[in-house]
């Protein structure tokens, strides 16, 4: 912003890195506007970021479709048409894959045949299933942000949660579901929480930066899982690194009949999101945590223990990510294998930013990513676009949300009253 000419700019007080970061993360439009208008304004950047991300994805699809080049060689109009066809068929398949086909749903509902209805709503429910781990993982990163911490280790915490949940899921025998399932699910939270506690404790005690430690712990978790699944936790008689199947009494119950897999985990995720909201914004502990994130020195002055805040925040963040792992094991896969997560932990960073680090925002962003991920499976089948396109789209969305200036420049939006440029996190070494 050096080209801005503002005469007599008032001396801005030196802000703490965490403070600026929190302002960015929790930026809110001015108070004087009505509520709906404020919400609308807060949604402008994320919505435009998503839209632009999809457009960029479309461009990549066009660039990698050989037919387009052939058509352009014939004539420009033909080329445009081929480009449009490529994108339309891909995104059309994505939409149908994510939501199901409307006509099919109407026909099924009219017929009243439950089997047909299940078939028709299957894609939509499958998207919700895909969104569930995103909600947990997104909440994990968002909670960290609120405390001024960067939890880049959700992926490792997810693995540990899955390992713990799977272990309890298949070893604890002879309990009814209402005892076994909660224990298994909580075991997931404990596993993730442990993996969050370590970097939190290290940061509080030694100042070691949580970003590096969580990255390192990610890989330690991968290796540890690899060892457990090829050694102590290996399914007897199996050639692959996979744990034994969990018992029936540890499975998250499903709501509908086959093939619909929508399970209790989704409701738990929504419930947990509400709990996190309540914790952060309605309780004293949540207030303390946010104060530690916003201004550690003010928190210290007010008698809030910063060290305790950091440890609690990282542990809770880890527990949330661990629940994502537990949810996948207990609700979807029913065992633990190395390939069970495909980068939920890293996508979670995009989710937290997209959702403005509010639980409601995270849930909405997770639903979007769930739709994307599930729809992309069909896109791969029908349009031959590899599923990895959604990673590309997610990366673009992440960039655009993190750099609102780019979106503002593209769409010629005015700069808001609230300062929202710099997103800061201190350097590596802490302090």
């Amino acid at each position, binding site marked *: 912003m050096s080209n801005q000419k503002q005469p007599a700019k008032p001396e801005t007080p030196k802000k703490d890195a965490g403070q600026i970061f929190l302002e960015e993360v929790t930026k809110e439009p001015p108070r004087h506007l009505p509520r709906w208008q404020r919400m609308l304004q807060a949604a402008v950047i994320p919505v435009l970021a998503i839209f632009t991300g999809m457009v960029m994805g479309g461009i990549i699809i066009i660039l990698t479709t050989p037919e387009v080049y052939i058509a352009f060689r014939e004539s420009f109009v033909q080329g445009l048409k081929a480009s449009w066809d490529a994108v339309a068929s891909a995104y059309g398949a994505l939409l149908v894959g994510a939501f199901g086909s409307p006509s099919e749903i109407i026909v099924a509902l009219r017929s009243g045949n439950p089997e047909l209805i299940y078939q028709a709503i299957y894609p939509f429910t499958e998207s919700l299933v895909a969104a569930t781990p995103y909600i947990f993982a997104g909440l994990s990163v968002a909670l960290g942000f609120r405390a001024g911490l960067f939890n880049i280790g959700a992926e490792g915490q997810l693995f540990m949660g899955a390992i713990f949940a799977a272990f309890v899921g298949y070893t604890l025998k002879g309990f009814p579901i209402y005892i076994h399932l909660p224990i298994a699910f909580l075991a997931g939270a404990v596993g993730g929480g442990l993996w969050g506690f370590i970097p939190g404790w290290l940061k509080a005690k030694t100042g070691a930066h949580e970003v590096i*430690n969580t990255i390192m712990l990610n890989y330690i978790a991968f290796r540890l899982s690899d060892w457990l699944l090829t050694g102590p936790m290996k399914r007897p008689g199996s050639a692959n690194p996979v744990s034994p199947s969990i018992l029936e009494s540890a499975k998250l119950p499903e709501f509908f009949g086959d093939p619909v897999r929508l399970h209790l985990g989704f409701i738990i995720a929504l419930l947990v999101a509400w709990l996190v909201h309540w914790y952060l914004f309605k309780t004293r502990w949540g207030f303390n945590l946010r104060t530690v994130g916003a201004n550690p020195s003010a928190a210290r002055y007010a008698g809030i223990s910063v060290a305790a805040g950091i440890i609690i925040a990282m542990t809770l963040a880890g527990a949330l990510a661990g629940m994502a792992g537990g949810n996948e094991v207990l609700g979807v896969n029913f065992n633990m294998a190395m390939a069970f997560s495909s980068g939920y932990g890293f996508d979670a960073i995009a989710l937290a930013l997209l959702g403005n680090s509010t639980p409601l925002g995270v849930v909405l962003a997770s639903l979007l990513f769930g739709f994307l991920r599930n729809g992309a499976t069909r896109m791969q089948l029908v349009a031959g676009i590899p599923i990895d*396109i959604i990673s590309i789209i997610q990366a673009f969305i992440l960039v655009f949300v993190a750099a609102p200036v780019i979106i503002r420049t593209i769409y010629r939006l005015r700069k808001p009253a609230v300062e929202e440029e710099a997103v800061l996190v201190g350097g590596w070494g802490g302090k």
Partner: protein
Amino acid sequence: MATTTSAFHKEIAYISPTRQRVMGVVFLVIGFAIWYLFARPLEPGLTTTFGMTPGGVEAVVSDLVLPTLATVDLLAILCGVLGIIQLVRPGGFKRYTNLVLGITFASFVLAFLTSAAAGKSFNLAGLMHSTLLKAVPLTLGAMAGILSERAGVVNIAIEGMMLSAAMTACVAASITDNLWFGVLFGVLTGAFYGVVHGVLSIKYKVNQIISGTAINIFSMGITSYVSAKFLQPIQELNSSGTFKPIEIPLLSKIPVIGPLLFNNNIYVYAMFLFLIVLHIGLFYTRWGLRLRSVGEHPKAADTLGINVFRTRYMGVLLGAMMAGFAGSYFTLGSVGRFDEVMTAGRGFISLAAMIFGNWMPFGSFGAGLLFGFADALASKLAILGVKIPSQFLLMAPYVITMIVLAGVVGRSQMPAADGTPYEKEST
């Protein structure tokens, strides 16, 4: 932290008495562990044979045959003596404490190898050569990180840059049938990401970790996408071949180290060259002083007329190009074809090597060798018939980095302004 500029020349003169005693006990414990774990279960009279010639080269020196028990005992005694000296002598080993720690650690590893290969033959030179090769991408990646972070921009996107560069290098080399084009495209790919990372984090002041994460996600996505769409159906795009080892005359005839160091492909030589150039560049030239100054105290640098933004762009760009070069190693220097997610976290180990090496080129090389050794040994464990799961050795780099970062074994000194965007005050 303001004194970090002189960290290179600073010697840690003072070692606290607690640290001295703890280290002494650690040395003794290692010595005892060697005896307890390795010497005690051994039967007397066994010998261990260490092959001293890496594979694929005609033998110049004969194999090293050691009496197993005596060797292990000797190493245990060495560690014990070092521990006693550390405890008894005033100040212990002073500033050489970490070096001695390294010696005891090396003794432990050597004792482990000797006892594990008791009565058998084990190719020690092969292990060393494989260590060196595995250290190459780690060291190059760490130097990428150093270039960027010495200028004050955190780069956790080394992994993503390497991965994409590995692919473009392979594809370019396959299409043109010229490996050097592959290297060029790998470096250019790195440069592309460098520009993205630089513009996002320097111009738009996006959080550098978010920017890096975005690049990692993007790179993972685009390489898997292209691989699934083009490289798997069309194999001709994905068969680059590799650089062949070049034997340096005379030098490669030196016993033991000759075949180890002077019969490698260009990446190994390039690594040594870059190490020297970067070390001299960073610490003995005006260029390096400027680069480091914007990483330590950008405001002061700006006052002295150094263009902070341009210098940072340069650091990020050079670092990214280095990461691209490191990425091309995976395809052109090692396997000869691209596989999805083939870097497998090596970029993050590079990051760890950079931290462990205290943001110094040769320090990172040491760290790279250590981490490479863990990696190389992990694949040899099965041959030795040792019960330790290889995953624990693969975990070692990460655990060691966390320990170093926590300040247990010396504190790493990061550039003071690393990770902080610079805002020029508006005039």
